[in-house]
């Protein structure tokens, strides 16, 4: 089976089944359970194209969580890389009755925690600032203000305790429900709500001097 990857891989990719001749070609969604199962089977068999398809389907989600959790692009790259290596080595452990997304999110969360345990230094965000300065003149001020606010929030989020930070990232970067977050971090939805509430209060307090 040959998996061809298209240009926009963020949530979709192109699959071509090839048994000597091309039999079908269709745009597939990463949320399509059957397709994901087929790709996972391919990964289990060591099919490099299947792994590439899985990577393309999930790379942005994995990287986004890693970046928002660590607050550091270099750390985010390390975390994302580690996550995909874990995915590859543990794909045999995944049971199809469970949600693949939740399973993968757990890998990302574990990689984030592992990275933090290694004692990585947090570096300030510079990419957004550079983009803002390079923007057209009329929007520079607005962009700078927006970027400054985002950086301040990101910096404060990066200083939250890990159990607060991860629920904030999963909630606001991935838009997950309390139930989904609970399944990923291994606690009850009530605990998720409590941690989010606590994190909101901490963020309000720490960001209040700038309002």
């Amino acid at each position, binding site marked *: 089976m040959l998996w061809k990857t298209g240009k926009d891989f963020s949530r979709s990719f192109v699959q071509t089944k090839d048994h000597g001749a091309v039999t079908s070609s269709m745009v597939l969604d990463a949320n399509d359970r059957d397709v994901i199962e087929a790709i996972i089977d391919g990964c289990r068999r060591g099919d490099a194209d299947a792994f590439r398809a899985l990577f393309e389907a999930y*790379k942005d989600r994995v990287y986004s969580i890693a970046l928002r959790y660590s607050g550091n692009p270099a750390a985010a*790259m390390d975390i*994302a890389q580690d996550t995909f290596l874990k995915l590859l080595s543990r794909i045999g452990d995944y049971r199809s009755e469970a949600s693949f997304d939740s399973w993968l999110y757990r890998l990302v969360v574990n990689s984030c925690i592992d990275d933090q345990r290694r004692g990585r230094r947090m570096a300030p965000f510079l990419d957004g600032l550079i983009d803002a300065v390079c923007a057209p003149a009329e929007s520079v001020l607005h962009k700078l203000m927006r970027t400054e606010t*985002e950086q301040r929030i*990101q910096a404060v*989020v990066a200083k939250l305790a890990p159990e607060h930070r991860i629920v904030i990232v999963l909630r*606001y970067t991935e838009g997950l429900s309390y139930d989904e977050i609970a399944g990923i971090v291994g606690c009850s939805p009530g605990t998720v709500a409590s941690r989010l509430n606590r994190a909101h209060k901490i963020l*309000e307090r720490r*960001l209040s001097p700038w309002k």
Partner: protein
Amino acid sequence: MEMKSELNLALHPVTAPPELWERVQSARVRRPQTTSRGFVWAMAATVVLAAVALSLVRSPARQDPPLTAFHCQNPAQLRAWVKANTGFNVPLRAALPASIQLIGARAREGRVEIAYRAGNRDATLLVSRANAGEVSVPHSQVNGKASSWVMDGQRFTLACNDSADFQLACKLCHLD
């Protein structure tokens, strides 16, 4: 509400850098893909069975002398164990300084090897039966990291990782 909308804006998803794939690929080359758990267990079982089979094949033809080992940090207990298993009397100090940490001893074929740490480095004292007629031979430095001498019919060989550790390593038996 305002906080939530601020968080939504500040923590929005981003696109992964294109070089991430290269990073993952190069790491895969450095760290080969782990095989399935079943395969690992099968391989482990094969290795164990092969080792058992090899030992069974070898055992009638070649009987390795039994190796006995004793992990112990107490000098009095270790000295007693060495005496009981080899007959050697190794004059370890009853109370060792903090810079000397015993690891243990192992005995085979009429010799005993006492492993310990001198400072932060490994040191070994090997004790064996001296040649006939050798009752007492003074210390001789071999290459700065090993020294050998004969005392009471026993040959002692002290080896250190670093020649600078020699003075310290001697405190296993000698006073400061």
